[in-house]
């Protein structure tokens, strides 16, 4: 039973049909505390749809045997604001256009928590510092670059999870898409350290090498099915990658660390 308790999320038979086309084909998946799981797959594989269903943003196609449990409880057993203290989701893009300051944007993440002013300021500072944006705190959000905006939203999600205790689920949808090299790695390092403190982390990525470097577990989704699931060495073999991406690759060992490196050839 103790093993079951480690699941931050477990879903069974998730089906999604849009306009007669099967986007997700009976997916079952458990995410474990203390692990970074990356979700890979070609464009249109259903990655974002899966994330949106797990995040309760869209509903799966009704299916008798389907089920999603958050920390071993069905969604309806949670009050909306309660669950929000434990699940943070970073979207690919935000449509925010109103002129909040950077600090205010991060503070929006504290909505589900009830913190005193000084506690709130403390959390906001900590998270701005973490994503290397403390120097931007008084700037107006709409005037920032895309990468800066992405980092600010990451800080907002981290602030939201600042009091999540031992139940933490962090889901990031292409969190590095607008970032430069050092901030890409910084973002994924933060995700890693969240996992090391016990969080379950799910990241949608396109860069196989970033996935190989930072994940405990790699999922490859294609045509609505999980084609590969396991450690980076297990999931990222040349054969599997070629089959899914239709691209010839060579997989080598990183010269100084124990994870695979994928080269397109």
């Amino acid at each position, binding site marked *: 039973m103790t093993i079951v308790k480690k699941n931050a999320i477990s879903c069974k038979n998730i089906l999604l049909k849009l306009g007669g086309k099967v986007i997700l084909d009976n997916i079952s998946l458990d995410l474990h505390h203390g692990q970074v799981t990356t979700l890979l797959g070609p464009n249109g594989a259903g990655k974002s749809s899966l994330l*949106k269903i797990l*995040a*309760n*943003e869209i509903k799966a196609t009704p299916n008798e045997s389907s089920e999603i449990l958050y920390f071993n409880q069905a969604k309806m057993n949670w*009050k*909306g*604001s*309660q*669950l*929000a*203290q434990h*699940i*943070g*989701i970073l*979207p690919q893009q*935000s*449509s*925010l*256009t*109103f*002129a*909040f*300051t950077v600090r*205010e*944007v991060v503070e*929006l*993440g504290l*909505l*589900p928590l009830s913190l005193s002013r000084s506690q709130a300021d403390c959390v906001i500072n900590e998270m701005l510092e973490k994503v290397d944006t403390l120097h931007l705190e008084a700037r*107006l959000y709409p005037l920032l670059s895309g990468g800066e905006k992405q980092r600010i939203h990451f800080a907002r999600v981290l602030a*939201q999870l600042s009091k999540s205790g031992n139940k933490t689920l962090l889901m990031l949808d292409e969190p590095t898409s607008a970032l430069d090299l050092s901030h890409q790695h910084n973002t994924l390092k933060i995700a890693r350290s969240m996992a090391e403190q016990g969080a379950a982390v799910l990241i949608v990525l396109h860069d196989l090498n970033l996935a190989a470097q930072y994940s405990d577990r790699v999922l490859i989704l294609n045509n609505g099915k999980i084609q590969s699931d396991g450690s980076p060495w297990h999931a990222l073999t040349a054969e599997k990658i070629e089959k899914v991406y239709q691209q010839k690759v060579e997989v080598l060992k990183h010269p100084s660390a124990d994870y695979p490196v994928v080269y397109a050839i």
Partner: protein
Amino acid sequence: MLLRQIPFSLLMLFAIALMLLTATFSIVVGPMTISLFDSFKGLTPWANELPTHIQLVIHQIRLPRTLLCLVIGAILALSGTVMQGLFRNPLAEPGIIGVSAGAGLGVAIAIVVFSSIAMQYPLLMNIAAVPLFAFLGGALTTLLVYSLGTSKNGTSVAVMLLAGVAIGALSGAGIGYLNFIASDQMLRDLSLWSMGSLAGATWASINLATVSLIILLSIFMRNAKGLNALLLGEAEAGHLGVNTQRLKRRMILLTAAGVGVTVSIAGMIGFIGLIVPHLGRMLTGPDHKVLLPLSAIMGALLLTMADMIARVAVTPAELPVGIVTAIIGAPFFLYLLFKQRGRM
């Protein structure tokens, strides 16, 4: 940026002081000259020392009118602020997207349908039937525009404005048709209403508007954090634990109620709901917790000023106040459109 560093309490204090000052002047100003001292005196228990005709002008005409201006201005500004938050678009305004026109059609329908009871129960008509129909018209319009124009990336300005044009035209046609079939008495009521002025202030309408304002402001304030989260996007607000469907439904109904009350009492007064939230955001930023109360005060202030201009610009005649707000507001709207042009 500089503006936003002014502390909120100071800003509020300043706005309230300015509002009170304007309200006082609004009692002094008018076709009949009443001195500042007498105007003040008219508001105190010593009013009965004044000549009767001055007492009458102050108590029956100028004071109710000023109070109505304050309250209607506040409701218009609040409705605009919430609507812009709901649509996640700073160009949304009850007048521009056709909600006022929808409410106006509701008013016209009520006047024509209930003309037989209007004579017997004028109060029931003016503070129940007409506002209710205005509310229904406004609510249906808001729902229509919202479902037409809003996707997960916010609201398309183009679709929203075009929907406003279409609904405006349709409501105009409806009102025109009702005018055409109306009897003499209905026609008189219709044209009285469509001139849309604050001159006809009665204590019944002031009470209705005040109660509406208190209810609206208190519910809006309780949902301020949710409205802030909604600016991030609907999905993001949901992730933060906000019940977005319920919030949206509530806000649509409440803004429609606000617009319905103002349209039924004072006709269509445009642009207050557009200008005020903008000025407010420049002063305090988009945080609804501070933006809403500030907007209410500034809306009261702005409409009272506009009404003063309407009264003195062409004395002894009087301009409809909607003309004054349009003269100020329409160029402002064009300027905003110009700024947003790249994002259409």
